[in-house]
C-alpha cells in the first residue's frame, strides 16, 4: 500500500539546515496497523506529514496504492488527500460551528457528493462509531472521547486507502484512550490500513507493528503481538 525509498527531508533554520529525515526506507501492506514511535525530534511527525502529503520530501520516492506521489501542486495534493487519506488529529480538529454529522460529511462535500447522500453516509459512519444519537450535537457538547470518535468517523467517511492518526490519544485520559484504540482496532479488523504516530508504549503495543524512529532514521521495525484494547477497558 505504501512504499517509501530513501526519503530525505531537511528544514532551513536560518543559516543552518536541520536534517530531519536521513534516508527512510519503509513500506506498509494493506490491512496493517502500524505504530510509528520516537521521541520528539525523532522525525516521526515529519514522516507523517510527508505520508499525508502535507509536506514534500527533499528526495526519495513515495508510492501510495501504486500511484507515485511527486510534483504535487496544491490542487493535486488536495485531490489525493481527499481520495487516499483520512486524518485523525491529536486535538480532533472538528469545526466548532458544525454539528457532528456536518463534520463527518465535510470530506464528502469536497468529493462533490450530493447533500442528501452526504448526510446519509455521515449518519451511517457516526452510528459505526456509536454516536448516532449525537449527530446534531456541536463539538462543544461532546466529550473528548466522543470528539475523537467523530473525527475518526470523519476520517473514514471518504473511504480512504490509509488512515493517518497523529497522536490520536494524546489529549485523552487512559480509559478514553483505550476506547478510541479499541475503535481503531475494530476499523483495522475490517481491513483498513492505519498508521498511528504515538510516543506512548501501551498505545503502540495495541498495533500490529512498531516502527521506531531516532534522529531521522528507522532504528527498529518489528511485528508485535497485538494487545487488544478491550482487555483494558
Amino acid at each position, binding site marked *: 500500500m505504501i512504499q517509501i525509498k530513501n526519503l530525505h527531508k531537511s528544514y532551513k533554520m536560518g543559516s543552518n539546515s536541520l536534517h530531519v529525515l536521513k534516508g527512510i526506507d519503509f513500506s506498509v501492506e494493506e490491512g496493517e496497523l502500524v505504530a510509528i514511535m520516537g521521541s520528539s525530534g525523532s522525525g516521526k*511527525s515529519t514522516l*507523517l*506529514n510527508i505520508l*499525508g502529503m*502535507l*509536506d514534500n520530501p527533499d528526495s526519495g520516492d513515495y508510492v501510495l496504492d501504486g500511484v507515485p506521489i511527486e510534483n504535487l501542486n*496544491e*490542487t493535486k495534493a*488536495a*485531490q489525493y*488527500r*481527499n*481520495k487516499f487519506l483520512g*486524518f485523525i*488529529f*491529536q*486535538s480532533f*480538529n472538528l*469545526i466548532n*460551528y458544525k454539528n457532528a454529522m456536518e463534520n463527518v460529511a*465535510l*470530506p464528502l*462535500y*469536497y*468529493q462533490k457528493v450530493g*447533500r442528501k447522500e452526504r448526510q446519509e453516509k455521515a449518519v451511517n459512519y457516526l452510528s459505526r462509531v456509536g454516536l448516532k444519537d449525537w449527530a446534531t450535537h456541536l463539538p462543544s457538547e461532546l466529550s473528548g472521547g466522543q470528539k475523537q470518535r467523530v473525527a475518526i468517523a*470523519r476520517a473514514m467517511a*471518504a473511504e480512504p486507502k490509509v488512515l493517518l492518526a*497523529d*497522536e490520536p490519544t*494524546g489529549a485523552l485520559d487512559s480509559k478514553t484512550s483505550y476506547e478510541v484504540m479499541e475503535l481503531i482496532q475494530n476499523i483495522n479488523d475490517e481491513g483498513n490500513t492505519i498508521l498511528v504516530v504515538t510516543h506512548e508504549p501501551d498505545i503502540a503495543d495495541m498495533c500490529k507493528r512498531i516502527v521506531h524512529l531516532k534522529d531521522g532514521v528507522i532504528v527498529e521495525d518489528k511485528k508485535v503481538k497485538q494487545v487488544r484494547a478491550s482487555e483494558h477497558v
Partner: protein
Amino acid sequence: MFDRDIWVEIFNSIKNNKLRTFLTGFSVGWGIFILVLLLGSVNGMTNGFHSQFNDDATNSIFIRPGSTSIAYAGFEAERRIQLKNDDIEYIRKSFPDDFENISGRMFRRTTARYKSETGSYTVQAVHPDFQVIEKTIITKGRFVNTNDLVSGAKVAVIGRKVKEDLFKEEEALGKFVEFNGLPFRVIGIFTDDGDDNAERGILAPISTYQRIYSNTDDVDQIALTYNSSYDLTKALEFSGRLETILKRRHKVAPKDQGGIRIWNYAEAFSDISNFTGILDTGAIFVVMLLLTAGIVGIGNIMVFTVKERTKEIGVRKALGAKPIQIIKLVLLESVFITALSGFMGLFIASGILAVVGPLIEAPAFKNPSVDFSTILISTIILIIAGFFAGLLPAMKAAKIKPIVALNDK
C-alpha cells in the same frame, strides 16, 4: 456560487462575528449612503436649474436689437437698430434647415377693460410659432393661427391671471375685451409653467399690432428655435452665422457687442451641464475615497478572519479542500458583506431622498433623486469592491499549509 453549503458557512461566520461584521459593513454602507445623497442632491440642483428655464423651449434663440457702440460703414455709433418683418423672412429663406420655429415679438403696454374691470398689461404680439418657442400651454380655446395673422384679426389669447382679473368667474372665451379702446375677441386662455408673471400677459397676432401702431413692419425682437437635433457645437455655430448675417444686413460692426444681441439657450445649458457635471465628478471622487476606506476596512477584517480560521482552513485542506474552494469561501463572504451593507446604505439614502425630497421648496433645488443607472453602477462597484477587499486575504488563506492543522502539540 449558489452552493448552499458555502452560504451556510458564510452565515455562520457572520453570525459568530456580528459586531465585527457590522462595524466593517458600516463603513461601506456609509460610503454608499453618502454617494446616493450627494448624487441625489446634484440631481436636485440639475432639476432645479432646468426648471428655471422651463418656460422656454430649451433650443431657443432670442435676437434683440440695441444701439451700436462702434461707428461703422459710414454710420455713427449709438444708432438704434430696428428689426423688420424682412429680417424674419430673410432668416426663413436663408436657414431653412437650421430653424424649426420663428416668431417676431412686439411689446406694447395696454389698458384692458371688460365691463367695469380694468387692468394694465403688456400685450405681446407674435407669430403662431411662438407657442412652441415659449412653451405656452393653452388651457382653453386656441392660440393665434395663420388666419388671424393674414387677416390681422383683433383677437387675443389672455393669461390665466388676466382672465381672473377681468372676467372673475365669468366665461371669457368669445367675449370682447377692450385694449386701449379697441375691441379684441378672446380666443384662448393660457398658463405658463415658468411663473405667475407670465400669466399676467396677453398674446395677439403681430400683424394686427403692426397695423394698429402706425402700420409699420417693425419687430421688437425675433425668437426662434434651432433644429432640435443639433448639439451644442452646431447650435452655437448656427447662432454665430445668424449674428454675422444680421449684423451685415443692419450694417453693424462685426465686433460690436451692442447692435444686435443673440442669446442662445444652448450656451446657458452647456454652462449648467458643465457645472453639474463637475459637481457629479466631485461627488463621485469624494465617495470613491470613502469607499476605499471601507474596502480597506473589509480587507482588514477578512485578513483577521482568515488568521483566526487558519486552523480550520488547514483542516479543510487536509480533508481535501482545493485552494480555489478556500478562495471562493473567503471571497464570497467579503462580497456578501460589502454588497449587503452597501445595499443598506443605498436603500436608506434612497428612502431619505424620497421622503425629504418633495418637502424641499427651493427655486434651484427640485426633485432630488437617484436614477436606476446610479443604483446599478453602485451595485457593480460594490461587488467589485468586495471582490478586491477579499482577494488578498483569500489568497493568503489559500496559501495556508494544512501542516499547521497538525502542528498543534
